[in-house]
């Protein structure tokens, strides 16, 4: 298994409850910010990736709500909220 397949398999073990709007959004115009490139490396769920255009894309499914990207990117780059109550990851062990 490749690294990304392995990670997907791990995230597949967790319980996620779907919500409405993505709770973390890249602010418009910030898609190429270098801090987002760091988030690609640091996100424990591997949710940030670079598109061919050089824009960084965030896929919110599988977010562990750990908070790392908020420290790495800050408020300028990300609009960061927790998901709505009763949605998102629900740890069964923790």
């Amino acid at each position, binding site marked *: 298994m490749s*690294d990304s397949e*392995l*990670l997907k398999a*791990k*995230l597949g*073990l*967790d319980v996620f*409850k779907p919500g409405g709007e993505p709770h973390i959004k890249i602010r418009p115009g910030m898609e190429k910010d270098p801090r987002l490139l*760091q988030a*690609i*490396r*640091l*996100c*424990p*769920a*591997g949710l940030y990736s670079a598109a061919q255009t050089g824009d960084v894309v965030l896929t919110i499914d599988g977010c*562990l*709500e*750990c*908070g*790392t990207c*908020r*420290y*790495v990117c*800050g*408020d300028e780059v990300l609009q960061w*909220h*927790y*998901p*709505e*109550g*009763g949605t*998102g*990851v*629900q*740890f*069964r*062990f*923790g």
Partner: protein
Amino acid sequence: MEKFDVIIAGAGLAGLAAAYTLAGNGLEVLVLERGDYPGAKNVTGGRLYVNPVRDLFPELWHKAPLERFIVQEGAVLMAKERSVAIHYSGHELRAEPHQSYSILRAKFDRWLAEQAEAKGAMLLTRVRVDDVIKEDGRIVGVLAGGDELRADAVIACDGVLSLVSEKAGLRAPGSCHDYAVGIKEVIALDPGVINDRFHLEENEGTACLFIGEATHGLFGGGFLYTNKESISLGIVIGIESLLETESSPDAPALLDAFKQRPEISPLIRGGTTVEYAAHVIPEGGFKALSPLYGNGILVAGDAAGLALNIGFTVRGMEYALASGYYAAQAVLKAKEAGNFGNESLSIYQQYLEESFVLKDFKSFREAPAVLSNPRFIQHYPELLGDLLAEIYRVPTGPKDRLYPTIRKVFTLAEMWSQFKDLREVTRI
């Protein structure tokens, strides 16, 4: 409009400890939790040290759903191609009351919430606190799930990011320097296999910390705790350290590399990963603590930055429980005085200063700076590994005398550097 005595944001250890204490004293307490159940959003390494908080909740411990009591402590200096381990076991760790237990938060927090509810606290799950209500410079309630909920006091126990304290204007988002990210797998394994593999009897447990290559030489370390029917295995990495080392593997790959180390892989062989989790952890110690109170608001647990890494022990949960307890005591005192203002709630800080909580944080205020010395993580594991490799080596020809062998590793320059490191360590 409904008004409570106290609203608590977050049903983690701090929030539930506060709710349990306040409800036990007859106050009307509302706990708001955004997860499906208490613990649903919470992650630990982890282990709880019970001694400092045993007497704060005397009725709790005999029935608490803890995992295993820890009777063995391990510390492994992990070099690239070898490792040196310290294994400690002592009869005091086997004696009751046991000092520490491994713990899984989804189970424990849910149970603790039931205890708080039995005391009369009201718990609402699946409710996210979106904002605080501020009137005349004072926090008088929260906005949650579209409702305006009011209280004499709000306790922010919403974890390391504490968006509630930010909304209240108590703190700004923290700096990468003061935070680490923990990444963990829970690996299910037969209890009998765990006992055989780790030399444990019945409900005994082991705890082990790893430094060095566990994190690819980055600031942080690895950890392993045995639970009843699983192993918690993970790494903690300083966010700043990971940012500055662009050559390092991605965070998820660091955990995979750790799992594949020969020191680790036989320990988890045959196990099945049942959960993958991650969470940011406060690592800045005393100097990075957030303001603990404001007008009508108190902050407890990770939300205040109350986690403390001093190398051999990594602690947070008992500080969360104790700060929740003392926040409750402060509210009780404020209620007596009929004043929930800044000055009245400042007694919370005093309670924490008189307790083990801030005494520990002050005693170990230099620990984060001293432990961030990269030599501890990158150099000493290699040095000790090299030394032992030489000592144990039997070559094809004659073996060198031991003293010159040791001196080959411990050169004068090396010893001078060690002296300087040691001088720093005396600050802890």
